[in-house]
């Protein structure tokens, strides 16, 4: 025992050591390893030796129509389902529920949260059953004498975006419910007395006051949506063709189905970059003083 010799500062930091070691080992380690292999032609199988190839994987990605298609679809998917869908719908639900009676609030909240609690794969199968030919939506359309179709085939990216909205809106709703509860009732009341209508109050009072929550919520939603894999995999496998193949699905196909670990990892790093870009925008939004 050398209790006396140790510096008190170091001693105090000692309890942190296991956490730091674990973080280095399981978080920083794999990320560094990913960066390393993105610059090699490493394959899972089918090659005796791998070698460094510099930026070849990245050059290849930007020349690959499948990659550009995946970037485009990822953006469509993120903007539609996260920024427009989950975010707006979550805010609307939160605002409506604030005015609703207690039982309505409880029931509506339970329904929305259930969708969120379901595992991704289960939600995927539910929505697959909803959108497929002879599925629920199709049956309803048929009953209404509207043209029937297989939504997963005709509008796959819309179908998976809707599925993500369905699944993820609860989170936004919870965030916004908490934020709306924070707005002092006197301010809204004062504005109402001054004759401000609903829309004006929303624009001039509510939105500015929950600006920080909007930023946080958008950031979390976007990052989560960028990495959605299971939902799309179950519903469409990225198809038909590559009409719903977002970046995570392309990455999986290249790395594990085509064994191109090096290239797949490069795609993953580029996905990380897209996430970082979105985050940077939101961080600016958060920093701006009201």
């Amino acid at each position, binding site marked *: 025992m050398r209790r006396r010799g140790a510096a008190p500062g170091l001693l105090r930091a000692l309890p942190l050591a296991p956490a730091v070691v674990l973080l280095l080992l399981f978080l920083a*380690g794999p990320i560094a*390893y990913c960066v*390393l*292999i993105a610059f*090699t032609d*490493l*394959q*899972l*199988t*089918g*090659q*005796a*030796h*791998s*070698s*460094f190839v510099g930026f070849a994987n990245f050059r290849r990605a930007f020349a690959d129509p499948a990659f550009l298609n995946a970037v485009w679809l990822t953006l469509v998917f993120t903007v539609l389902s996260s920024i427009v869908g989950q975010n707006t719908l979550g805010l609307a639900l939160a605002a409506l529920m604030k005015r609703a009676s207690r039982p309505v609030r409880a029931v509506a909240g339970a329904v929305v949260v259930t969708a969120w609690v379901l595992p991704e794969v289960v939600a995927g199968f539910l929505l*697959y059953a909803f959108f*497929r*030919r002879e599925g629920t939506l199709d049956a309803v359309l048929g009953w209404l004498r509207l043209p029937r*179709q*297989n939504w*997963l*085939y*005709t509008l796959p990216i819309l179908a998976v975006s809707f599925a993500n909205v369905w699944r993820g809106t609860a989170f936004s709703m919870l965030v916004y419910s908490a934020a709306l509860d924070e707005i002092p009732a006197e301010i809204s009341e004062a504005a109402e007395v001054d004759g401000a209508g609903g829309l004006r109050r929303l624009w001039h009072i509510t939105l500015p006051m929950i600006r920080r929550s909007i930023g946080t919520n958008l950031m979390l939603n976007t990052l989560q949506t960028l990495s959605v894999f299971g939902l799309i995999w179950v519903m*469409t*496998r*990225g*198809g*038909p*063709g*590559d009409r719903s193949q977002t970046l995570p699905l392309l990455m999986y196909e290249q790395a*594990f*189905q*085509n*064994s191109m670990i090096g290239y797949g990892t490069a795609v993953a790093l580029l996905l990380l970059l897209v996430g970082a870009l979105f985050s940077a925008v939101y961080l600016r939004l958060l920093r701006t003083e009201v």
Partner: protein
Amino acid sequence: MPVRPTAALTALLTTVLAAGALTACDAGSGEGPDTLRVSYKQSTDNSVKVMDTYLAGIKKQFECEHPGKKVEFVPIKAPDSEYYTKLQQMLRSPRTAPDLVYEDTFLINSDITSGYLKPLDPYLAKWPDWGRFIGTAKAAARGQDGKTYGVPDGTDTRGLWFDKRVFRKAGLPADWQPRTWDEILAAARTIKRKVPGVTPLNLYTGKPAGEEATMQGFEELLYGTNDGRSDPLYDAASKKWIAAGQGFKDALAFVHSVFQEKLGPDVSDALDPNYSTTVRGELLPEGRLGIDLDGSWLPQDWLPGSGHEWKDWSKETGLASMPTQHGQAPGKVSMSGGWTWSIPARAAHPDLAFDFIRTLQTRDNARKWYIANSGIAVRADVASDPAYAGAQPGIKFFTDLVATTHYRPAFPAYPKVSTAIQEAMEGVTTGDRTVAQAAGDYDAALKDATGGQVVGG
């Protein structure tokens, strides 16, 4: 400069696996020089214990016959694609490589090229039973260097399933045996005309179906073109892949006809990734599909306890072999896959591992295994054994196909070539591409996938 950036990961994996092994060990087994470590794919369905039960019996027998030796199983519980990934990681290091592994012939050549496996020729030369294995099956685990890297434990074959109830309504014979592609199309057209509401012919197609589309669908056509014998995808002499020739285009044209004449399923159904489940679980048992180009394993889904039992399947379905394009010799086509037992290059006890393979593949044990897992025998002596041939209706039909079956050129580029085939099929299925355009796309994708190792079709 060659690098091995996986070293860190392997070390990590070793630690994790070692921790798992330590807690999983029972008192009797250890890491000693007398312990044989055997890896295999465990079913992800907890109620399916076919392989576990079978191997437990073999272990008992082996330990009896080899006093002082122990067998320790290292099962990997994962779906196919993740099983390959885990196994390949384990094979990279002597610290994690087991002594014996279960390899899918789909990827075995890839693993051979990676240097993961040991050639078995010296062992096979001294093993009399090897002579009883059927020639095509022996070739399934042969590397590009001509050496053999695995002992197959069964295979599968493919053919045409047809619904006798639908055929009766369409006025088609119950003992239907088409001799050319045109006869298949003719039967499908008859069904379309006379039995509305039924899908006349199912052919797996496109990327969503994956390897199922390539193997059950396209290759069943392609290998029946030209002389019907030589490999139309890969030229063994020049070790190059073959570009889309007339046979390839004819096969695409067949797919095109099926979907454009609406003889097949609705295109949006055909491109549904879960379509094969619908075919086996709903369409066939409910009599809503006339002809299905599919595999030998279908009855697995209809046996008691499967969820969609179909008691009368053997009475209500008929079997026909897939014919060659114009009926040219050998007249029928089948594709085969299957799994082999292989010894890793970094195995600690290769000799003992081969002894275990010999125990697995005694005549009695092999027969027991084929019957237990609805497999198709690759040993001539078991194939002719009445106890095996009578175990399930249809088993004789599919076993007879082994003599003329084809194995895929499962070389390292194959998975990418397979994807290129699926894309070409999908183009003509949706009608977005003409046959000529789809063939051109395939040629371009093939060049990319094989690094330009292509000869004219």
